[in-house]
């Protein structure tokens, strides 16, 4: 007889992992399933890594509510989970009078949403704070509660903390269908088998529509992914005067092309927004790069194409859910609900931006939904909110580096030369509570291969380390799970092809 869970979470993106982490403080048996070979491989793997202050969302929407709920929590969450966070503040930059009017509206909207300490600053003040800003600047909206976070680390840390507090995670395990008992969902089917549970939470991101349709909920809801393309600049070539986020003035089309610092030191530029079909189309296009480059140049004219070291595209889980607050006419809100027609099902959907910024708030709302449904959530006496961090060689002083190498010589061996990532760091991730088993998993966790040579140096070395540590041949080491091997066969071994 298989174990029965209290809660099964479908999807290991930032939302699923954050929900697992928040629920793991209660006496619940939790299982999180993820269809990919690692957590955080979907939308969570490719975004601006910005914590929004909360002035963008329309008042009355769940987007506004959860963003505001989350905003004050980041110092605590990042400290507990050992994740880099900088409450850098952000700017929305206007370059003409019309845009200044928009900033005024944004300021009012922010105040309604409960965003504190916002102010409109003069062009002079903006130039003083960021001399690289365009000379066309007319003024800016300053939101000091905006911030920057390491999204990859956050997803891993949240999941790891959940695991340390008893949550089970199954990777490479896609959801297939629900198990029903009348109108109650009592579990799920996966290729690994069936798992029973009193509650199932839909945190399937881009596929949240498919999951809820299988539950017979919101047949009209559709995720229509909007792709955003980005480029990454070499930190040796370019940085902002102070770590921050520079938004252009938003239009009906969206927040526009951002120039933002990241906590890895690189400035990133993007995203544009184009609807894509099929859902996994993460193609970067020539036109897309032109579009974001043109946009970025309007904010920071001194950036140069020679600084570009990488490009990527991410997908927003854009949905068509209407806002349920009376009097608010808005389509595209988050779904955070227990649908009336089904029992045992918590439905999350349409969690595009500010999904990352709102993820703790979404998790808190899930807890409230469970309580409202009559669950007595008892806290575990031994719940540990702290996730132990692992050493990051490049962040240490020379004295600390020397001590670390002395204590564990594998930290003395540099595997990624551009980002100075050591063998010790890679080994630690392979043997972590959620083991990194692919190149991309190593990359997201350690920053290996993200620098100016883009893995040219480290790739064969990382494949070798993975092969040695996992005890499988190098041909079976993949970039991102099955069907993505690096190597095909040994040389000389031509088999039937010869």
């Amino acid at each position, binding site marked *: 007889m298989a174990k029965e869970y209290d809660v099964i979470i479908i999807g290991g993106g930032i939302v699923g992992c954050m929900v697992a982490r928040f629920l793991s403080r209660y006496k619940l048996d939790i299982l999180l399933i993820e269809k990919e070979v690692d957590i955080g491989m979907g939308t969570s793997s490719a975004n601006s890594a910005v914590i929004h202050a909360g002035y963008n969302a329309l008042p009355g929407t769940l987007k506004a509510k959860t963003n505001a709920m989350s905003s004050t929590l980041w110092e605590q969450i990042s400290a507990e989970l050992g994740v880099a966070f900088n409450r850098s503040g952000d700017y929305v930059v206007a370059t003409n009078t019309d845009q200044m009017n928009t900033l005024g509206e944004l300021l009012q909207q922010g105040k309604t949403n409960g965003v504190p300490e916002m102010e409109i600053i003069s062009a002079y003040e903006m130039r003083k704070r960021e001399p690289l800003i365009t000379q066309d600047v007319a003024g800016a909206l300053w939101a000091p509660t905006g911030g920057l976070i390491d999204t990859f680390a956050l997803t891993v840390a949240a999941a790891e903390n959940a695991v340390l507090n008893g949550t089970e995670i199954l990777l490479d395990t896609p959801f297939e269908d629900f198990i029903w008992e009348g109108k109650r969902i009592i579990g799920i089917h996966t290729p690994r088998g069936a798992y029973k549970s009193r509650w199932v939470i839909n945190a399937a991101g881009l596929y949240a529509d498919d999951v809820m349709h299988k539950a017979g909920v919101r047949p009209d809801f559709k995720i229509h992914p909007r792709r955003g393309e980005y480029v990454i600049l070499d930190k040796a070539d370019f940085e902002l005067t102070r770590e921050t986020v520079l938004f252009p003035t938003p239009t009906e089309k969206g927040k526009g092309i951002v120039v933002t610092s990241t906590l890895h030191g690189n400035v990133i530029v993007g995203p544009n927004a184009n609807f894509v079909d099929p859902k996994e189309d993460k*193609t970067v296009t020539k036109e897309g*790069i032109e579009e974001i480059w043109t946009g970025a140049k309007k904010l920071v004219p001194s950036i140069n194409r020679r600084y570009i070291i990488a490009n990527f595209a991410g997908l927003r889980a854009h949905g068509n859910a209407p806002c349920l607050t009376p009097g608010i006419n808005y389509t595209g809100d988050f779904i955070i609900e227990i649908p009336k027609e089904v029992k045992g099902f918590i439905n999350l959907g349409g969690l595009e931006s500010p999904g990352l910024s709102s993820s703790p708030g979404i998790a808190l709302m899930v807890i409230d939904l469970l309580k409202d449904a009559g669950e007595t959530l008892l806290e575990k006496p031994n719940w540990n909110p702290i996730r132990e961090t692992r050493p990051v060689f490049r962040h240490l002083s020379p004295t600390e*580096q020397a001590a670390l190498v002395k204590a564990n*010589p594998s930290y003395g061996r540099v595997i990624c030369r551009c980002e100075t990532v*050591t063998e010790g760091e890679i080994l630690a991730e392979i043997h972590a509570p959620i083991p990194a088993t692919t190149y991309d998993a190593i990359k997201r966790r350690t920053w290996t291969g993200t620098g100016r040579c883009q893995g040219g140096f480290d790739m064969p070395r990382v494949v070798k380390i993975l092969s040695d540590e996992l005890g499988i041949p190098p041909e079976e080491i993949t970039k991102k*799970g099955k069907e993505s091997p690096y190597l095909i066969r040994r040389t000389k071994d031509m088999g039937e092809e010869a």
Partner: protein
Amino acid sequence: MKHKYDVIIIGSGPGGLAAAIAAKKNGADDVLIIERDIELGGILLQCIHNGFGLEIFNKDMPGPSYAQHFIEEALGLGIEVILDTMVLDITPERKITATSKRIGFIELQARAIVLAMGCRERSRAQIMLPGTRPAGVYTAGTAQRWVNIEGYMPGKRFVILGSGDIGMIMARRLTIEGAKVERVLEIMPYLTGLTRNYVQCLIDYDITLQKSHTIKNILGNKRVEAIESVAVDEKWNPVPGSEEIIPCDTVLLSVGLIPENELSKNAGVTLDPITGGPFVDDRFMTNVPGIFAAGNVVHVYDLVDWVTEAGYVAGRSAANFAMKEKITKISHVPLSASENIRYVVPHAINRESLKEETVRLQMRVKTPIEEHVRIIVEDEQGNLLTRKSEAYARPGEIITMEIKSDAYDDVQNAKQPIVSLHKR
């Protein structure tokens, strides 16, 4: 091991080995090579094809044999070596911080340093290559390491972007190993590698090169499934209707090499944006006194033999700097490139150099000229310092010429000699 050395060389490729040998032979007592890989030789070890040594040994050798000659000489001279060790930082005062699994975290002081870190390959984003990001997109050198060092094939059906030398050599290598190279695409209207590699690697193996072509899109989410190629006009704009889907599982990029100078920057060394390497004089000294540079870290050479020769000069100069009691003020005359010359190395000549020896100049042109040309070096008064004729000039092939000692007096008076190229 010691903590103070006369000369420390960073990197043990051909430039580093030659520099170490020359430093030792020219009077430096304590010479140390720091190498990040587990054996000496640098990228030569993965270059198992022939074509090395023709200039220096008058012999056609594979890369590892060429390297072995210098490895044995260096070890025979008593040069110290630390392997599997990465240099983390160099200061302008020539303090070096390095780290290693075996010997730990170390700090060293050098009287002179030779930078010999070589170069790295241009990556996908640097050429703005669009498409998805599946497994199966590698630089040619990474694939070369896998095939020749690790013994693994990174794919079955290849498209190679760029007609650089490594790309063409890998096209042949992969074909010999049973893979199919579907196409080599070159965005320029001309070959960017050496003609001899085009003949020996592509023509001899029936591999198609398409000039004025590039990749428009990479297809496949997990692993490369195909690429979409497209013809381009002289401004690199795609020619509509010329698109072609080429099924393949691997894309190799051979789209240029960039001197690897992140450490140099930390040391305060100024870089030439055109070469990507330090500004150097004819003794391969950078702007930072006591810090020299040898080989592909300065500019990317066509032939390893020239890297070795540059290494000799840098090593000798480093030894002279390290062992000299007093450092005299050096007077330089800068060289400038004009008229279709993209760059000239060295960037400046030490006015005293020509007293004792000839000075070698190496340069690349901007665009190909398929007719007889003459390269002239003259001072601003029009006094000829040297000249040379060539049957053609191609961007893929370095032009080498010398200024002889008889130009010593003219060089003393020159302010900024100009190197220019003319059709004959």
